[in-house]
């Protein structure tokens, strides 16, 4: 019989083979808050956003009640809800928040109170990008500051949404911030975190790019879609599970709770619930057992995981050419030339510009 096989060690950088900062503890506790994302009145957004922050604060208190939670996550549209088909650009610019701004400061107080990170997905704007609005995921750190943000990278402009993505202003974006900012990973003392929103995850490259850059925890804030029967893109929860498995990363799939309002959005966000936390091989660690408001909490043994986790090992060179030769449906810099006034204007503009 052969003895144990003795192989030469790899001549590589010792693990972790990506940039990290020291961890605050071996285990971190994460909570996904499955909350309602009732749509606010776009004509007078401030008071309703404040009400939503009050509600979020209560839910954070609830999440922190039993065990110190290191990371709190919220679903997509957590501050404003959404009415994509009915809100004009003017409306979006009125209700979008600044990063940082008074809203993030209020949430920052909660982060300071509990020494935790809070991930939020909401509509934002930025003075450096006049007239643009973004569907943005961001993280507030325990110091109360916004430590990370990422604009939703994909939403089909020919049908779904017309918030600005990086691809829509690609040249300007890269010129200002560099390529590293296209797929940002937050290096925190609870692990390397990447955030993305809903339909960004329709493309598996999103998770892959974050994993290449050393993401250890993926947060996908989403609103609806879990059981909404989107046949073309499949069930986003299943894809999230697959991303965790394929990339050896932990995943938080944070959906909204059933909408109690009587607006059209109650229908629009069908497929609420099923918020889940997946482990690094894609198994369900914890999940919501209803589509009502609830907190889904579990522990990630991040220290132990980091001791052996590596970036994905793929044979890059054979894929690069295929991606280079592929012609994407929409050209980059779509919104560098023109900013649609509203949803239908955006849809028609994108369809005119589409390459196929």
């Amino acid at each position: 019989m052969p003895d144990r096989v003795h192989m030469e060690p790899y001549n590589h950088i010792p693990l972790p083979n990506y940039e990290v900062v020291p961890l605050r503890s071996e285990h971190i506790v994460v909570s996904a808050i499955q909350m309602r994302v009732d749509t606010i009145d776009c004509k007078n957004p401030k008071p309703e956003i404040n009400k939503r922050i009050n509600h979020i604060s209560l839910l954070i208190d609830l999440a922190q009640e039993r065990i110190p939670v290191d990371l709190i996550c919220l679903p997509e549209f957590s501050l404003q809800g959404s009415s994509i088909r009915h809100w004009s650009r003017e409306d979006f610019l009125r209700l979008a928040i600044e990063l940082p701004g008074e809203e993030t400061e209020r949430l920052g107080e909660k982060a300071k109170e509990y020494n935790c990170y809070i991930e939020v997905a909401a509509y934002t704007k930025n003075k450096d990008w006049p007239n643009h609005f973004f569907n943005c995921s961001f993280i507030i750190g325990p110091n109360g500051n916004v430590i990370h943000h990422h604009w939703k990278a994909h939403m089909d402009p020919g049908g779904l949404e017309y918030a600005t993505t990086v691809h829509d202003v690609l040249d300007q974006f890269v010129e200002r911030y560099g390529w590293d900012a296209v797929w940002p990973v937050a290096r925190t003392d609870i692990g390397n975190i990447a955030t993305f929103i809903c339909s960004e995850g329709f493309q598996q490259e999103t998770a892959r790019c974050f994993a290449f850059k050393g993401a250890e925890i993926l947060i996908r804030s989403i609103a609806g879609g879990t059981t909404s029967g989107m046949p073309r893109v499949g069930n986003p929860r299943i894809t999230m599970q697959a991303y965790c498995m394929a990339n050896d990363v932990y995943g938080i799939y944070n959906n909204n709770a059933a909408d109690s309002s009587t607006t059209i959005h109650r229908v629009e966000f069908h497929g609420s619930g099923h918020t889940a936390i997946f482990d690094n091989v894609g198994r369900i660690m914890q999940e919501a057992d209803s589509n009502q408001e609830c907190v889904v909490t579990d522990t990630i043994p991040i220290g132990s995981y980091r001791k052996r986790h590596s970036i994905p090992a793929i044979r890059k060179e054979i894929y690069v050419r295929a991606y280079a030769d592929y012609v994407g449906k929409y050209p980059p810099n779509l919104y560098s030339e023109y900013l649609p006034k509203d949803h239908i204007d955006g849809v028609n503009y994108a369809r005119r510009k589409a390459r196929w």
Partner: protein
Amino acid sequence: MIEPYFAAICQAERVAVRSGGKIKENIKRNLDRYCNLIEYCCTGNLSLVPEYAIAGPVKLITFGEFSITGLYSPADPDTRRFTNKEIIKNLGILIPGEETAVLAGQAKKYGVYIAAANTEFDPEWPDFHFNTAFIINPQGKIILKYRKTLVNNPVEIACTAHDVMDRYVNPITKKLDPFPVVDTKIGRLACCICADLGSPEIPRIYAMKGSDVVMHLTSGNTYSAGGPRPIGATETLHRARAIDNSIYWINSNWGPEVGAMYPRARIAGYSKIYDYMGNLLAMAEGTDEMVIRARLDIETRRKATSLFYRNSLSQIRSEIIAPYYSKPIYPANTFLKGGPIDATLDKRQIGLFNEALDNLKKRQDFYSEEEV
């Protein structure tokens, strides 16, 4: 400092030892197979995958209950159930003995700990047989022996420490130590066996004694037993044992048994490993022969359980619980008083169960709503 390592479960196929009446040959065939599986754990293709190589070597290998000489499964041509004397003569092995020496050879060769369980004949107790779990260390030494406590009555007639309690001495620790925990280079290990799952107290005691890993060596679980528990119940119990006691829980079950009169997959399959938070780390997805493995990180477990909210034992209010365990239920020392039980479904043994039921009845303590 204990580096993370892999534990591997060999859900081995086994020939029913009574098959064809060739007990000795069948035992040898089974041991040969286990040697192959141990070799596979340590040198097989999984240990060549870089991700696994990074993650650490296999250092602990487990087999199921009745690993070596098998259950009493009737097999052609002899379809009777064995009596106590026949079990001692045909299935009882010395631990250590020539059979365990074969496994010890592999433990030394590959530098691994091996846990298994088998029917044991102990010359100290010539009239009895035990259902014994044992651990072999990388030096080939038997470092732990645990005798099954909740024998699967009334179809199992092994002696337990409780049946001879007043005279019982654990052969390794040389004291009355029915629940031994051994400190090793890969953490503090303990074993329980199959129907012991019915006693949440056993893993609890192990956790109190500082155990990191409890190996539950079994011949049967819900999925395939067709037994009295509803589907999924056994898995729930396994998971609860891990969560309640903040321990790694390794349920090492049989693969199929070939050559018995019973169905091959009667009590086979679905071995699993849970971490100390109750996460399922690995599961054998079926009843066939397979090896599953999971990475254990003992140091991280210890750090976690040093926090009160990660260690449910810290919630135990022992003073108000202890009195309920102080009175007898199933009578002790019955083998000392009455000798061994000769055959399964024995009237005397059934009498003992009825005595336990009577004791339970006597202990009942409640008041009527009328008194309030």
